[in-house]
């Protein structure tokens, strides 16, 4: 009865919307303030990268993989290089592995801080956003110091890394880390205690563990739902088998838990960077480059900031891959996310959206072009979810 009286408004988020820093479209059907249906529409950032990989030589692929996603670019290059190294049967030297871990973790810190800042902004807490981003600049400086660029690191290469660090650099990095740690601990306190943040995030967007497994979510989203999974520990790559660290798992299953997992992971990452730099083995940083690869298949998995990243490389010999499949974490989280929106209010949309840390640049690397987006090509994910449960 009530449903027939209240009008349903179609609310469209995007592709240009302040809550989405990327052009994706979400179609929400809202009744009053309550979301009754959410339909994501991906594909705005699709650039046909998987096809491009097939045209480009292995060495060019590094730069292409880096540009799948600018935020987690190191995870992409690590994953790509590992896949190619596996096919080529080469093993990077230990120093390179440690350096990879260092830059990978710095990248994770920058990505998580970015997300936490954006989360604060979405919740309307601009001061926190500005302060977190101010302190993120410390990490950006470190990344620049080690790799030579703020964002695109171009650090990894097939068979090792491209730049070495010297004692002076290590000292500089180790000097900045305590400063960063202190700030992150402060933000942890803010996220833990601030009443307005807690009001907006606790018990919002609950994804129970069972659903998290059924909908195949990955990364901090899974770990926030008590799913104990971390590729760094489970299938160690780079130097992670030698570096001690904890996997953060929380069982609150809500938006707040997902944010807290990220805060704690930043602290873990700081420790990893510190450990790796203090125990950096000596030796060369890369092997001589091979141009072509023998036939073969390899799978490489990496724990990107947003979750498990998978590259599946098929080589038929020669200098270009036969097929390279990339599965990025956001695509895995999208289905569960669109289910989370239902029953929440419009004000919760940004909070939930930000808790999955959407990176559509990643998601769309495979999917295709679309000219008329308003068409009836959307699938109702709610129906799908319901069907899946039956």
């Amino acid at each position, binding site marked *: 009865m009530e449903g027939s009286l209240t009008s349903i408004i179609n609310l469209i988020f995007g*592709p*240009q*919307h*302040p809550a989405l*820093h*990327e*052009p994706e479209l979400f179609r929400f059907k809202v009744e009053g303030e309550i979301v009754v249906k959410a339909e994501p529409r991906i*594909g*705005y*950032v*699709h*650039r*046909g*990268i998987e*096809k*491009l990989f097939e*045209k480009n030589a292995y060495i060019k692929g590094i*730069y*292409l993989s880096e*540009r*799948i*996603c*600018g*935020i987690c*670019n190191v995870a992409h290059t690590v994953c790509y290089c590992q896949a190619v190294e596996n096919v080529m049967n080469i093993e990077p030297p230990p120093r390179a592995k440690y350096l990879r871990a260092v830059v990978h973790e710095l990248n994770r810190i920058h990505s998580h801080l*970015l997300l936490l800042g954006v989360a604060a902004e979405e919740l309307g807490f601009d001061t926190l*956003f*500005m*302060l977190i*981003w*101010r302190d*993120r*600049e410390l990490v*950006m400086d470190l990344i620049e110091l080690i790799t030579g660029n*703020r*964002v*695109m690191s171009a650090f990894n290469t097939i068979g090792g890394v491209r730049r070495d660090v010297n004692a002076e650099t290590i000292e500089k990095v180790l000097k900045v880390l305590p400063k960063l740690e202190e700030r992150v601990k402060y933000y942890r306190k803010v996220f833990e205690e601030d009443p307005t943040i807690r009001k907006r995030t606790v018990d919002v967007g609950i994804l129970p563990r069972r659903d998290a497994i059924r909908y195949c979510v990955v990364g901090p989203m899974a770990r926030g739902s008590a799913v104990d999974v971390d590729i760094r520990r489970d299938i160690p790559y780079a130097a992670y088998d030698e570096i001690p660290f904890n996997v953060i798992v929380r069982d609150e299953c809500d938006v707040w838990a997902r944010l807290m997992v990220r805060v704690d992971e930043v602290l873990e990452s700081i420790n990893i960077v510190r450990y790796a730099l203090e125990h950096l083995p000596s030796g060369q940083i890369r092997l001589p480059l091979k141009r072509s690869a023998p036939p073969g298949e390899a799978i490489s998995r990496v724990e990107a900031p947003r979750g498990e990243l998978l590259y599946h490389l098929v080589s038929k010999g020669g200098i270009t891959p036969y097929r390279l499949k990339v599965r990025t974490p956001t695509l895995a989280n999208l289905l569960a996310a669109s289910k989370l929106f239902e029953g929440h209010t419009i004000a919760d949309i940004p909070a939930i959206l930000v808790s999955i840390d959407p*990176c559509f*640049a990643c998601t769309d690397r495979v999917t*295709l*072009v*679309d*000219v*008329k*987006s308003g068409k009836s090509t959307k699938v109702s994910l709610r129906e799908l979810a319901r069907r899946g449960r039956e």
Partner: protein
Amino acid sequence: MTDVYALKKLALWGRLRSPWILHFNSGSCNACDIELLAAITPRFDVERFGIKVVPSPRHADILVVTGPVTRQAAPRLKRIYEQMPNPKYVMALGTCACSGGIFRGSYAVMGGVDKVIPVDVYVPGCPPRPEAIIDGIVKLLKKMEAETYGK
């Protein structure tokens, strides 16, 4: 006569001192986007110059486009450009937005932003540093100034 001139000068002053930007991602990898966002944060703080990132195309003076234009984003980009009130300017941020960059030749990418809408200033870089973004805006303001005095 001098009054008109003074008014014109005041008008130009207002425009130069208050460039409001709207950000549109037409298929970027997020690197340029985060650098643009970093430009409004404390270390770079473009609000000092009166630059403000606005949420709605109706409020904006400068459209900052990042990323190569994908086929799917192209009509949207055009529509957003049309929604902006005159006088409006476009800034192509990053190598991809300037020329299509590394994605040039892909079946899903149209190329640079200038394939779809007219561009006033190009800021190359992958991604451009926040300083470069500020410099790009300054160049655009100089262009505005030259346009006014040229007429």
